[in-house]
């Protein structure tokens, strides 16, 4: 890493685009939540939230530019989250209504 000066305009532009995209997705999500659209809206709301989280990971937290080892560790984290959700959901989703407390 060598000393350099001057902010990179491309990085700042990208940060502003990401910022605008996150706010636009937030607006869409809020509209989906406040309009009487029924229970199905849960799917797009969670989908948009995951998209926002993905944008933060990929661009803001710069996963895309990290070495393979860092990418592997971050992916492993999400893999174990999937294991947690998968195993726990198997229990809750297969309970009969009579068993639910």
């Amino acid at each position: 890493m060598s000393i350099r000066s001057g902010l990179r305009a491309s990085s700042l532009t990208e940060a502003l685009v990401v910022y605008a995209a996150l706010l636009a997705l937030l607006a869409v999500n809020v509209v989906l939540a406040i309009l009487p659209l029924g229970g199905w809206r849960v799917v797009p709301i969670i989908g948009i939230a995951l998209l926002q989280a993905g944008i933060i990971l990929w661009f803001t937290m710069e996963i895309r530019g990290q070495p393979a080892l860092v990418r592997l560790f971050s992916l492993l984290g999400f893999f174990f989250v999937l294991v947690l959700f998968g195993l726990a959901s198997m229990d809750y989703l297969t309970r009969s209504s009579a068993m639910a407390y």
Partner: protein
Amino acid sequence: MSAVAPGEPVPLEHFESYAEQRSASVLGMWVFLVNELLLFAGLFMTALALRLLHPEAVLAAGEHLKWWLGALNTVVLVTSSLTMTFAIEAARSFERRTAVLCLALTAGLGALFLGIKGLEYYLEYEEHLMPFLDRPFALPDAASRLYMNLYFVATGLHGLHLLIGVGLVLGLALRVSRPGFLEAKPTHVEITGLYWHFIDFIWMLLFATLYLVNR
């Protein structure tokens, strides 16, 4: 230790180069963040389980949450992430004043988030929505209590992380303001920034899971 190129910060003795030291620092931070992710994942799983087992009670409680304050806080936190990104870029370019200004703005926005969250908690206290306090609870269903407890645990844990982040960023701004700090330790801002962005990342998921899905 290999020879250090002109203009390159001096790495710690067990690293070959500063680039290697930077990679190790980023990896170490990610290992920590992955652990944090798993901590919050348990809370997200609890939210899913509560919604599956007690949909009516969760929806009844969710209607009482102040989604507009949550949305406002999301805007504040996303903006703080933008200023943190600017701080990281300024640090990489050794623009000390810009970095300090952006870090101060980031900490200020973090404090604003906590202030708005405090106002939200106060409103919920006034509406008798804090089941852990020794006062009447506004909702009849016991599962609504569970949901409100989860809401306070999740947002409280997130707020604690943000409070630590504000302290870290303020301390960092003070250190960066000293001439020579950025040149000697240019990755400190980047590593702290990762933690800050992670707080933003978690909030995006918390806001959708607690406020939006259960309206």
